């Protein structure tokens, strides 16, 4: 069982890049919106959203420790499993449903994304890009699943069971009928990859990606 997928945000990129990732997500959210953060970890993003955007935020988190930290921050967070519990949320309950650095730990990412688009008017998904050139290089040259400073898990004990590339995620969005309103990739320095470049550049140089989606 993945215990704390959010710890990956730190594991996959430098703290500065993580910060930019969260800040970018926060900037996508309209002030005062109702937000559900799926896999909210210790509540850092929800707190950022509450402080910067004045949102009415809720969270779901698998780990009991994460929930306790969130509760102590004054956040409303439920201990639960997004793979199971999202089905119980009513339609259109939130303005935004956020899945930050967690989709790769879901058992059924497609079902989760469909629920997000049902529960929220918009969905925001950020994830590590498995198509990044350094990961491709690891696999291509060493012939082993990448285990690096930024990706510290061996294949047999990783919580990340469904890695995808940016291109893969775009295909999933098409598959579930999601409309992409915005999409940004960040390079390993945490800088946005220029929007004007073609997809294959994003897919090669983006270390993480953030998508703002809505139901078609």
């Amino acid at each position, binding site marked *: 069982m993945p215990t704390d997928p959010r710890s990956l945000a730190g594991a996959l990129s430098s703290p500065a890049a993580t910060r930019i990732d969260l800040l970018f997500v926060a900037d996508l959210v309209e002030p005062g919106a109702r937000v559900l953060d799926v896999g909210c970890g210790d509540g850092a993003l929800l707190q950022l959203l509450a402080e910067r955007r004045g949102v009415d935020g*809720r969270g779901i988190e698998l780990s*009991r420790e994460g*929930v*306790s930290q*969130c*509760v*102590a*921050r*004054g*956040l*409303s*967070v*439920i*201990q*639960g499993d997004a793979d199971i519990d999202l089905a*119980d*949320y*009513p339609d259109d*309950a939130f303005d935004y449903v956020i899945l930050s650095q967690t989709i790769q730990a879901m058992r059924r990412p497609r079902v989760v994304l469909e629920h997000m688009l049902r529960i929220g008017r918009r969905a925001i998904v950020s994830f590590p890009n498995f198509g990044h050139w350094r990961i491709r290089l690891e696999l291509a040259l060493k012939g082993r699943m990448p285990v690096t400073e930024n990706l510290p898990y061996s294949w047999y004990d990783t919580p990340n069971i469904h890695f995808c590339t940016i291109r893969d995620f775009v295909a999933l969005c098409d598959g579930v009928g999601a409309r992409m309103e915005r999409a940004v990739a960040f390079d390993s320095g945490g800088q946005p990859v220029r929007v004007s470049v073609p997809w294959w550049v994003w897919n090669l140089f983006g270390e993480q990606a953030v998508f703002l989606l809505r139901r078609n």
Partner: protein
Amino acid sequence: MPTGAATAIVPSSQVDDPASPVVRFGWDRPLVLDSGARLAPWQIAYQTYGTLNAARSNALLVCHALTGDQHVANTHPVTGKPGWWETLVGPGKPLDTERFFIICSNVVGGCLGTTGPASVNPQTGRPWGIDFPLVTIRDMVRAQAMLLDHLGIDTLFCVAGGSMGGMQVLQWAASYPERVFAAVPIATAAIHSAQNIAFHEVGRQAVMADPDWHGGRYLEAGVKPAKGLAVARMGAHITYLSEAALHRKFGRRLQDRDAPTFSFDADFQVESYLRYQGEAFVERFDANSYLYVTRAMDYFDLAADYGGVLANAFRGTRTRFCVASFTSDWLFPTSDSRSLVHALNAAGASVSFVEIESDKGHDAFLLDEPVLSATVRGFIDAAARARGL
């Protein structure tokens, strides 16, 4: 085992004139019950801890469980034992008596000073016995609301409680949403399950099968159905524990002997323990109260009052909730708390939920569980900040 002899009809001193402050409501202030009965005159006994602030905004109501009482954080007047929730309530504790004005009252139907079946029926001059009207969780909460009105407390910073206390917390949030800023229902459910009703019925039948019950009129006979009530308590006590906890505490160890005696003596430690629990209980609790209060829990089905949809009980609520359950609690399992949380979510309520790892069963909510303490402390501190306390 206790005999049925007329040993002290213990709670009687606590029934009418308890070691607690009491508010007495006269004929003009009846408690109108769900059954349609009007209880008057009636009284409610309560304890308070800490100081009510000038803005009257720091009141925190603790609701007790089936066999609990108002002595939440002081030495019990009958048993001499510490208060039943001193793990959570006290100076510097998560429910901090130095910051909050904490109130706990005995439930209506109880036997520690609030009107119940052991109280005198003013129309007959004799104890009510089973002529006492049936009460519900909502009646208990109504009585508490009248107490708060009397104390001049309009809104509660928080209502907290476990098990049947948690049912009252939920009823408070549903009946008086504007009076409850925060709610902490622990190890509880919005509906009493068939299995739990079944256990309660076994307990009640044990009481009523005792010849000393006298059709409920044992107080006038100068006896009490001690054996029946003890058996009821023994059965119930098993449901408060877990297989793992029983194994850890007792296993198959023998009680003060090296070999089984080939008799029905209490050879096993677990038997001895249960017998002790039964005996101790009858010293402090009225048998008819046990019937009434278990019945109140059986009738609890919050959704039924709201068209069968639990979320409707909390529609539009501004109360913030912190729900907690324990992994080994099979009396009020996590699934009960999850149903509650789903309903609160559907109602758009602000809710946190944590399932706490423990092998201590339902009783865990009364015990020193560090994760429970830390969770309640975190929630209460954050709520107090939001409330400006």
